[in-house]
């Protein structure tokens, strides 16, 4: 169960897969994303509510052919330049997009986790999103007649998250802002989790979620594996890096040089 990150990715991520790396600002699995880049996977459908810097890096390095998302910016800083370059100029390749609101994405994962074909929400009406996004439809409530939005379930081939710790049997514990990770894990065929550390036993923590080993495919110990995102109790968000990424990512050459130095050849950041 507890394996190296290299092995976890090699065994569970395949070209053409639907892959979700989740973590809402907190606990973003950066190190795992970097390993996918190093293993040169192609044609992935990347799913994530907030693509963030990790998908900017993965898109810029050409691993993705499609992005399923709801908010694609660098939080508090501005644009994700590699994401924009892919959508606006097809660089480094064409990137199809399937675009929703946060509420829509959350509902899609919840349906996936529940093994339902679709989810409903009161949303999207009057917005132009349904004109561009094929995965939004209207349904009528059979009980009240109310018109509601329907969105299809997301069931990733593999979901990858970062968590605080695991025990030696591979049960995983996470706490703090947990976003949509539980739903993304439960919706997936395979699950990889990177953790800060392994401990003998998982002492209770307020608000913590435990994911039992038997629903997971692989656990890898990667201290600092969320950086420049953070792991509550272990690290703080590296806001200075998020600001610096704006300059690094603006230019294609500077971006490629940085990725070569820090991800392809260097240690994970």
């Amino acid at each position, binding site marked *: 169960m507890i394996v190296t990150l290299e092995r976890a990715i090699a065994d569970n991520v395949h070209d053409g897969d639907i892959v979700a790396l989740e973590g*809402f*600002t*907190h606990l973003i699995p950066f190190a795992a994303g970097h390993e996918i880049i190093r293993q040169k996977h192609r044609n992935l459908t990347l799913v994530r*509510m*907030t693509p963030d810097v990790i998908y900017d890096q993965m898109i810029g390095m050409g691993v993705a052919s499609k992005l399923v*998302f*709801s*908010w*694609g*910016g660098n*939080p*508090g*800083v501005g*644009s*994700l330049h590699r*994401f*924009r370059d892919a*959508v*606006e*100029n097809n660089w480094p390749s064409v990137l199809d997009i399937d*675009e*929703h*609101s*946060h*509420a829509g994405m*959350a*509902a899609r*994962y*919840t349906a996936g986790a529940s093994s339902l074909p679709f989810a409903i*929400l*009161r*949303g*999207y*009406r*009057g*917005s*132009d*999103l349904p004109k561009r996004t094929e995965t939004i439809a209207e349904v009528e409530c059979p009980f009240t007649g*109310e*018109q509601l939005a329907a969105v299809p379930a997301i069931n990733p081939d593999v979901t990858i998250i970062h968590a605080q710790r695991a025990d030696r049997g591979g049960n995983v514990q996470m706490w*703090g*802002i*947990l*976003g*949509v990770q*539980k*739903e993304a894990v439960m919706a997936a065929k395979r699950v990889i989790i990177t953790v800060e550390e392994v401990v003998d036993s998982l002492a209770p923590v307020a*608000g913590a979620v435990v994911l039992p080993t038997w629903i997971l495919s692989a656990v890898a110990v990667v201290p600092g594996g969320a950086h420049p995102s*953070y792991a*509550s109790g272990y690290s*703080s*968000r*590296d*806001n*200075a890096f*998020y*600001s610096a990424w704006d300059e690094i990512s603006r230019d294609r050459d500077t971006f490629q040089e940085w990725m070569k130095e820090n991800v392809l050849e260097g240690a994970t950041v």
Partner: protein
Amino acid sequence: MTATETATDTADWTSDEIMTVVAARALAGSATCFVGIGLPSEAANLARAVHEPNLVLIYESGTIGTKPSVLPLSIGDGELADTADSVVSVPEIFAYWLQGGRCDVGFLSAAQVDRFANINTTVVSRGAGKPEIRLPGAGGAPEIAAHANKTLIIVRHSKRVFVDKLDFVTTVGFGSGPDDRKKFGLHTGGPQKVITDLGVLEPDPETCELTLVAVHPGITVDQVLDATGWPLKVGDKFQVTKPPTEEELSSLRELHARTKKAHLGDT
């Protein structure tokens, strides 16, 4: 205390400062606010410091009743979770707390706004045959504007932002007029104020079209009209904004100073 006793002079503050101060005042009397990151977050935290110490701030990262001492750079900074009454999942925050009708005010910003306070944060046209400028997209905004009892919008005023026609409707304000929210199945109030660095716009009670109801001290009506991409009407109860008080300004500046120090400390 009257405002005039402690009022400051136009030379004492910036256009961004008065925008935030006026936006914070708009939250006086509110109990719960679902807060967007950036300008809304700044105003909501100023409101908690000066006007409504018990204002419950909710961020879409699932943090409820959060009391940050510094402004978060992102919607999910650790400070928000560490100081929250409760932290819930993202599906829960949108389904139970927002769609479930637990939020008084939704506080948003925008890339483009039209006369019916509809918002675009998705794409902006560069002209025919050219690729559109890609913006971040919807995030939580469509459902915040749909399900909060009322919505406030804070955005800097320019012709690029206040456009005659949106390139894309991401988030519905009043659609194309007074009947649309009902038609879309929305029973909440929709946008109540648009607060800018020049003044304040409010929807006309009959037509729902945004009208100018206030300019900030030192700003002329013509300046606002020049910065708006449609023939903006001036409302009947038009007035000049009260200048920031010493307390409002010093609270805002302390918030900024603490934030700057904290974010530099992260390196």
